């Protein structure tokens, strides 16, 4: 089984470009999360892969087959929709069976009355019933098979939608924010279930979400999409620690990454408001210094800040402060035991680990950094 591969996909709606030159691969058995803010084009990309929407340019391959001109039904994909899109007039059993009845039974077998009398129909129906039982069991739907969608809770409907997707054993799964209609507790539980289903099915899965926590916890690789472009595709750890673009760094991570305007001088020394940082850039010019909240800690020497308030999180503290020279907000994640009380307005210094500092150029692209070999904060 091959996976999903899209290459050079472009799509415009009128004057707006929804997708520009999008290229993405999901290997067989891989779970890729496509994450981005609403309106970034991720759902459009998914619809193009499913065949619901036609691309203006580019190619879609599923299972090593070029499916660009094919109808959704012929693409060997299954999709789970945000609204679940269950057939309201059918029972759970019938809903799950639809993909098989539409494919497995020839048209005359599907006729309401004649179908039951034809030779072969009974055997085919028995096979379908068996398959329904097979997928319903692990999802805990066995007792609900004769209900209608309106009689189910949100979580149950969601699982029916999953069952309907897996029953056909497609080469690729597409999931369009399947958890966004569930409450928070159920969402965390269902995350694990979806990963389980993915593992059992072994197909390529593309999972669209705007929730970075879902993307980071579930996926083998995360693709970050902004403004119709995929900015980075990498394993969750790399997306978090090693973003290639300032926008990726800003989108992933909560609280948001701290950014400070900085300047690389003629020697490449990166200075924040004149203060040396111990970092060296390749070329002089304005840069952005980005620091994860956990890379900052109070020290005798460092960036001068004024504390604003402290949030207690149980396993940590968030210190909200303002960088004194330019008023930029900074958030530091601290050990709850460490600093004692910080009073609002109190002035202190925050130092950071140069190895965890990220530098971005004026265009937002990541710049390589090197230790400056000189003392910081001098």
């Amino acid at each position: 089984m091959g996976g999903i591969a899209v290459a050079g996909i472009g799509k415009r709606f009128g004057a707006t470009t929804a997708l520009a030159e999008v290229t993405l691969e999901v290997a067989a058995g891989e779970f890729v999360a496509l994450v981005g803010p609403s309106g970034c084009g991720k759902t459009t990309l998914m619809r193009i892969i499913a065949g619901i929407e036609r691309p203006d340019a580019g190619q879609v391959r599923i299972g090593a087959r070029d499916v660009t001109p094919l109808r959704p039904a012929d693409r060997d994909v299954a999709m789970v929709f945000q609204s679940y899109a269950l057939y309201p007039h059918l029972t759970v059993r019938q809903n799950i069976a639809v993909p098989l009845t539409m494919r497995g039974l020839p048209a005359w077998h599907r006729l309401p009355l004649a179908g039951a009398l034809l030779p072969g129909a009974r055997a085919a129906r028995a096979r379908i019933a068996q398959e329904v039982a097979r997928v319903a069991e692990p999802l805990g739907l066995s007792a609900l098979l004769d209900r209608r969608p309106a009689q189910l809770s949100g979580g149950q409907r969601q699982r029916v939608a999953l069952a309907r997707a897996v029953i056909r054993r497609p080469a690729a799964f597409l999931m369009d924010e399947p958890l966004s209609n569930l409450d928070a507790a159920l969402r965390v539980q269902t995350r694990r279930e979806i990963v389980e289903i993915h593992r059992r099915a072994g197909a390529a899965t593309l999972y669209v979400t705007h929730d970075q926590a879902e993307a980071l916890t579930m996926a083998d690789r995360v693709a970050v999409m902004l403004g119709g472009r995929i900015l980075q595709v990498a394993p969750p750890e790399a997306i978090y620690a090693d973003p290639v673009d300032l926008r990726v760094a800003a989108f992933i991570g909560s609280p948001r990454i701290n950014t400070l305007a900085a300047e690389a001088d003629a020697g490449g020394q990166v200075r924040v408001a004149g203060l040396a940082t111990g970092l060296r850039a390749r070329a002089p010019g304005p840069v952005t210094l980005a620091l994860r909240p956990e890379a900052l800690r109070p020290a005798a020497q460092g960036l001068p800040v004024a504390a604003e308030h402290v949030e207690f999180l149980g396993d940590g503290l968030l210190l909200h402060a303002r960088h004194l020279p330019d008023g930029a907000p900074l958030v530091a994640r601290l050990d709850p035991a460490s600093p004692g009380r910080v009073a609002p307005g109190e002035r202190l210094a925050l130092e950071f680990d140069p190895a965890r500092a990220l530098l971005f150029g004026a265009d937002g692209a990541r710049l390589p950094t090197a230790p400056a070999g000189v003392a910081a904060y001098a």
Partner: protein
Amino acid sequence: MTPRGSLLPGAIRLLVLALLGLVFLSPYLWMAAASLKPLDEIFRASLALWPENFAGVENYGKVLARVPVAQYLWNGVIVCGGILFFQLLFAVPAGYALAKLRFPGRDIAFGAVMLGLLVPPHVPALPLYVAFSEIGLLNSYAALIAPFAISVFAIFLFRQFFRALPDELLHAARLDGMGEWSIVWRVILPNAWPAATAFGIFSVVAHWNDLFWPLIVVQGHARATPALGVLQFRSEEAGDDFGAMMAAAVLMTLPLVLAFLLAQRRFVEGIATTGLKG
């Protein structure tokens, strides 16, 4: 069920509804009463529902003897059933296409439908009559059914209703392997049951009671519809036989009333249980 203390509002509501019901029912009741009376009693100035001299046997006997009632009713069933069948056959896919498919000329097509709503059915009657006459189809079921087979009202109604169906449902159906025709008959129509029921009632009642068009294209008993049957008792020579006419009217409307009473529960159920929330 009714909590104590809210008995009075309930009683008032019941009273108002009962009075209104009586107002709506009174013509029908008067018709039924008149069908049991001899002619002189019908024209008496006093208001009495129950006849002094029971003439029911006479009136109904006259109707059954002079007119092939069963034939008329059967014609009514065929014509109304045929009209409804073709109306749904054409209007459901058309409504679906206008509501959910993107194709060039869609807005113009919908504009034409809206325009069609403005044309009263009496306007094309004469050209249609001439056309049926030319192809020799007068006095046939085809002549009774064909002019109503495409209902712009139905297309409009279904189009509005289908617009409310979520697009994701259709996308899911396409991914599940359904073609557009399967979507129309397997997904759209079952979920359009409330609209189809409402439209079915309108259509059947309108065409069962229609007098205008059958009067134009039908002669004799063979293809006459129920409404024409009632007309048989308007006689030019002897004056109208009101007792028999009312008896005929009762017989011709009875199937509709019975059908509605029998199906009432299913109609209401259909409307109540077809939850569209997926």
